[in-house]
C-alpha cells in the first residue's frame, strides 16, 4: 500500500487575470522508502502540487478544486481541518525548502528552533529534547554539535543551514519528506553532500522522499521514480530508467537535450523554443504543442491527450509534437 496516494489533484489560483490552473489533475503515489522525483520548468506546478498536500497554498487566491491525497490509506490530507493538518505537518510529513539562508528564524538560536520542532509533536522534557537535537545535528554531519547548537542561523554557512533544516525536519522521523529544490541555492560541491545526506536520513527512517527539482542530474542520481510535469499536468511518469533511456514524450526528450554536457564544448546549447503557455487561459488540447517553434500533427489541438501505459511502470501522455533532429536545430541556432 502506498504511503501517500494522490488522485486527480487540482489547485487553481483565482486571480484578477482569470483562473490559473497551476495543478490540473495530477495523480501519483509514493511507497515507503521510495524517492519520487518531480521535474519540470518553473511554473509547471511541481511545487504547488506538493504545497497543496501540506495545506501551504495561500487561500485566497489559491483553492484546491478537487482530488484526494490519502496518507497511509486512511486520512485525506486535502479534507483535513487546519488543526488536524498541524498535527501531521512536521510529524508525518516534513518539508525542506529551497533557500536555507532564509528558512531559519534569524532571531532564535538553532537549539531553540530544533527543540521547538521536536517538542511540538512529542512530549519530551527540555533536557531530553536538547540531547536529541544535538544527536540530530551530529547525524547530519555537524561537528561539535553541542556547542554549535547554541549558535544563531547567521553564524552558519548555507550548506550548514540546509543540514540544520534537514535535522529539524527529520527529528520527528516523518514518514514523508518533501524536499523543494533543496540544493538549488547551494554550491555544486555542497549539493552532492546534501543529497547524500537526504538519502542517508531517508534510509535511517525508511521514509518516503518527494524531491522537487528542475535539475535532471539530481533526479537521475537520487530517484526511484520520476514524474515529469508540464503546464500543471504530468506528461510522463516512470522509473529513472524509463525516463532516461526510454523517454517517450517530446517534452521529456527536449528536457534531456537541454542538459549541457562536457562533450558539446564550443557548440551552442540547446533550448526548448517558445515559452510555457499562459495557464490563466483554458488549454483544450496538448499544452506542449502550443509552444512557438514546435510543429505538431494537430491531432491533440482541441481534445485533451490522455495518459497511456507503455509498460508496467511507465506512463506517457499522448502528444504528436515532432522535435526536429538535434543537429538541425543547433546548426540553425
Amino acid at each position, binding site marked *: 500500500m502506498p504511503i501517500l496516494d494522490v488522485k486527480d489533484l487540482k489547485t487553481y489560483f483565482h486571480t484578477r487575470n482569470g483562473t490559473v490552473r497551476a495543478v490540473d489533475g495530477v495523480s501519483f503515489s509514493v511507497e515507503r522508502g521510495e524517492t519520487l522525483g518531480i521535474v519540470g520548468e518553473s511554473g509547471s506546478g511541481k511545487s504547488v502540487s506538493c504545497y497543496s498536500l*501540506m495545506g501551504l497554498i*495561500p487561500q485566497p487566491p489559491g483553492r484546491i478544486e478537487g482530488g484526494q491525497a490519502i496518507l497511509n490509506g486512511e486520512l485525506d490530507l486535502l479534507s483535513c481541518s487546519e488543526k488536524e493538518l*498541524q498535527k501531521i505537518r512536521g510529524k508525518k510529513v516534513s518539508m525542506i525548502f529551497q533557500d536555507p539562508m532564509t528558512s531559519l528564524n534569524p532571531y532564535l538560536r538553532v537549539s531553540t528552533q530544533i527543540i521547538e520542532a521536536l517538542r511540538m509533536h512529542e512530549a519530551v522534557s527540555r533536557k531530553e529534547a536538547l540531547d536529541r537535537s544535538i544527536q540530530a545535528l551530529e547525524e547530519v554531519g555537524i561537528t561539535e554539535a553541542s556547542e554549535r547548537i547554541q549558535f544563531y542561523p547567521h553564524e552558519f554557512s548555507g550548506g550548514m543551514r540546509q543540514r540544520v533544516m534537514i535535522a529539524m525536519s527529520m527529528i520527528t522521523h516523518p514518514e514523508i519528506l518533501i524536499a523543494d529544490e533543496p540544493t538549488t541555492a547551494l554550491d555544486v560541491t555542497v549539493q552532492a553532500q546534501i543529497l547524500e545526506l537526504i538519502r542517508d536520513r531517508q534510509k535511517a527512517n525508511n521514509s518516503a522522499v518527494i524531491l522537487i527539482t528542475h535539475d535532471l542530474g539530481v533526479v537521475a542520481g537520487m530517484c526511484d521514480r520520476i514524474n515529469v510535469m508540464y503546464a500543471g499536468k504530468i506528461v510522463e511518469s516512470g522509473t529513472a530508467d524509463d525516463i532516461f533511456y526510454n523517454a517517450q514524450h517530446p517534452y521529456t526528450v527536449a528536457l534531456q537535450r537541454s542538459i549541457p554536457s562536457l562533450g558539446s564544448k564550443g557548440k551552442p546549447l540547446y533550448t526548448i523554443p517558445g515559452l510555457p503557455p499562459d495557464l490563466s487561459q483554458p488549454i483544450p488540447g496538448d499544452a506542449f504543442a502550443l509552444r512557438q517553434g514546435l510543429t505538431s500533427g494537430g491531432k491533440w489541438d482541441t481534445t485533451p491527450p490522455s495518459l497511456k501505459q507503455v509498460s508496467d511502470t511507465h506512463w506517457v501522455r499522448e502528444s504528436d509534437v515532432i522535435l526536429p533532429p538535434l543537429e538541425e536545430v543547433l546548426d540553425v541556432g
Partner: protein
Amino acid sequence: MSVNPKLSPSEKRLPQVSVDIDAIESGTSLWQDAWYRLKKNHLALASFWVLGFMAVFCFIGPFFSPYDFQSTDLESTLQLPQLKHPFGTDDLGRDQLTRVMVGGRVSLGVGIIATTVSLLIGVSYGATAAYVGGKVDATMMRIVDVLYALPFTIFVILLMTIFERSIVLLFVVIGAVEWLTMARIVRGQVLSLKKQEFVEAAVSLGYSTRRIIFRHIIPNVLGVVVIYATLTVPSVMLLESFLSFLGLGVQPPMPSWGSLIKLGADNIQLYPHLLIIPALFFSATLFSLNFLGDGLRDALDPKSSKD
C-alpha cells in the same frame, strides 16, 4: 574558555588575532550585534546615559529632597536659585527642584506607560491582522482607519472632560490613541515577513498560528518596534505636556513638566528661571530620546545607515 584544545599548533601561534572566544562559543544574537554597533555611536550612547540620569533623578531624587513637592511656604515665594533652593521656588513657595523631579516622574511615566500600552495593543493587533490576512485584515485595518479619522486631540480632551481626571486615565487614553500608527507599521512589516521561508517552514513543521505570530514573527519586527517606540515616547510626552499646559492633564498640586512650563510661561518676564529650568530638562529628554531612536535605527538596521 581560555584555550581551545582543537586548535592546530599553527593556529595557536597567532596570538595577535584577538577574538572574543566566549562570544563565539555561545553564539552572537542579532541583538548583541546591534548593541555593539550602538556602543560605537557616541551620541546615542550619551543620550542613553542622559536618559538613565533623568530616570534616577526623577524617580529616586525626590526621596533625598528635604522638601515636599506640595507643601507651600508663603514666606519664600518666587525665589531665585540659591543654595537652599537650587532651582528657586514657585509662586506658592514650593521648592522648584523637587517639583521638577516629581514632574519628571509624571512626564516620563506617561511616556513609558502610554508607549507600553500602545506597543502591546499595536503590535498584537497589527501582527494578527497581517498574518491572518484576507477579510480579517481588511476589517481590522478599516477599524484603525476610522479611529485615525477621529481628531485625536479632541478625542482625548473629550474623554478627560467626561470622566474623572486621573493620571491613570491619562496614561490609558494617550496609549489608546497612539497604538494606531504602531499597528500599521507592524502590519506592513509582518506582511513582508510572512512570505519569508522561515515562516513557511514553521507552518510546515506544524506550529499553530498563534505560536508563529508571537514566537517567530514578532521577534523579527521588534527592531522596528523599538525604534518607533523610542520616537513615540517623546510624542506622548509632548501630548501630555500639551494637555497639562491646557489644564486638562495632570491636576494641581501634582506637577508635570508641561504644567511647570506653563507656570514658567506665566512668569516669564520677571522669573525666567521658572520656565528655563523645566524646559531644559524636558528638551534634553526629548533630544536624547530622538538621538537614541536614531542610533537604534542605525544599529538595528545597519543597511539603512549612512556610512
